[in-house]
Structures are given as structure tokens and as C-alpha cells.
């Protein structure tokens, strides 16, 4: 059988240990669920966006992030005012009447 020196499975145990890259730390179950970009927001910003009381000092340095989230929240606030188009209710009732 021909051995492949580049394949760690074919190397002697000592050599395999030398050449094998260090195993990455096992991610938590939550991290395995969906790989996402590295964290950019501090715990304080998350707490603030969750509506919790957060001190000025905890948020210092996060003004740029807060400015972005102010804009996102304003857009989300507009969507929160959207209502079901009137014709949808009429169509549902009409279909139920046809049944």
C-alpha cells in the first residue's frame, strides 16, 4: 500500500501530531446553529436595544452603532404601523361565503 506523506492518516502518530493543525475549540451549540459574522455589538448595545436601562458610560464609544440602530428602529417603527389592506379581509370573507 502506498502511503501519502501529505495525508496525516498515513503518517506516524508522532508526525501526524506535529503536522496536524491545532484542533479548533469546539463551538457551543448556539454557535454551531448558524455561522454568523463576528460580534460587532457590545453587550451594552444589545441591552439598550432590548429596552433595558444602560448607563451612558456603558454605551460610550458605541455612538456610530447606536446611530445606525436609531435609523433601523425608525424604519421598523414605520412598518409597525402598517395595516392589512382592506381588500384582504373582504376576499377572505368572500371565499368563506363561497365554501
Amino acid at each position, binding site marked *: 500500500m502506498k502511503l501519502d506523506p501529505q495525508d496525516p492518516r498515513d503518517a506516524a502518530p508522532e508526525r501526524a501530531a506535529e503536522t496536524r493543525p491545532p484542533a479548533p475549540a469546539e463551538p457551543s451549540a*448556539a454557535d454551531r*446553529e*448558524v*455561522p*454568523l*459574522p*463576528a*460580534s*460587532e*455589538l457590545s453587550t451594552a448595545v*444589545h441591552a*439598550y*436595544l*432590548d*429596552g433595558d436601562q444602560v*448607563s*451612558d458610560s456603558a*454605551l460610550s464609544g458605541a*455612538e*456610530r*452603532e*447606536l*446611530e*445606525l*440602530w*436609531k*435609523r*433601523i*428602529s*425608525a*424604519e*421598523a*417603527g414605520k*412598518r*409597525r404601523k*402598517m*395595516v*392589512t*389592506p382592506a381588500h*384582504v*379581509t373582504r*376576499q*377572505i*370573507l368572500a*371565499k*368563506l*361565503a363561497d*365554501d
Partner: protein
Amino acid sequence: MLDYTSDVPLKSTEPAPQDDLLDADQAVIDRVLAGDRNAFSLLIERYSDPLYRHALGMTGSADVAEDILQVSFIKAFHHLAEVRGRFDAWVFRIVANGCKDWLKNIRRTHLSYEEDDQPSALETPDEELDRGELRDDLDAALLALPDSLREAFVMKHVEGRSYEEMAVLLDATVGALKMRVHRAREALQKLLEERYS
């Protein structure tokens, strides 16, 4: 203290239904089951708006949201006798499942969705994020999120629900939902910060 609170509606705007509302729902259900079909319109009027916003947030399409809402309420009508507990939570699950089914079908039929459960920050053409206003960019960014994160973000920030309310509707823990919302924010921050920060 920084004052963003006037522009940033962070607290829930739709508190959990009180007992009297639950009783009122049950009274309407009893009327419908007794043959008063028109009474069903009371339930539609009471709950269609938050459900429409949910479908809109999940699909990004008003037409699709309307279709999902119609199908869901008709389904709810035909299965009304099966309601146990809160009607609003029951009908929410019908709509939420309708949204997820639609997203699954879209992914089956569109190559661009085949890969994932991953946010497609780098798959989205740069010009797509460079066009339009924040509204369009936010829609594109939301659609790039995995379903579970988009659902949590939409419920928290678009629908304005509390974590406790979300936990009831999604049958999940508050801690798990906070984690989903936080992960959604991280991804959106990454997607939008270059253009808007």
C-alpha cells in the same frame, strides 16, 4: 444618558392579551362554530394587522403576505374547532408556518437560495446594497438572514413584541429568543454598517 428612546420604539407595543380578550375570542369562536360565519370577521379584524406585518417582514413581499394571510385565515376557519388555548397564538403559528413553507419553496426553485442556512452577506451583489434607501437595504439584509433569526428580529423590532410574548408564540425560551435577536442584529450590523454608519 443618550436619548434615543423617542425615536427608537424598543418596548413591546402589543402586550399579551388579557383574560377578557381571551374570553372574547372564545365567545366569537363559539358563535362561529354555532353557525354564525360572519362572526369570524371579528377575529380577522382583531388579529390580521400583526399577522400581516409578520408575513410581510418574513417574505418581504406585500402580495405574498396577503396570500399567506388569506390562506391562513381560511385554514383557521375550517379548523376552528381544534383551537385549544389562545386563538392568537394558534393562528400565529398557522401564519408563521405559511411563511416558512413559502421560503422553503422559494429556496427549492431559486438557485441563489440553494446553499443556505447562512446569511448571504457576500452573496448579495454590492450594487444591491448600494441602491435605494434604508428600507430596501433592510429588506435585502433581512432576507439574507436564516429564517429563525429573521423571524425573531421581525417579531422583536418590527412587530414590537416582548420576549415573553415571543416565547409564548414560538414555544421557545426567552433566553433562546434573545440569542436569536442578538445574532440577527450582529448580522444586520455587518450587512448595513458600511453604508449607513
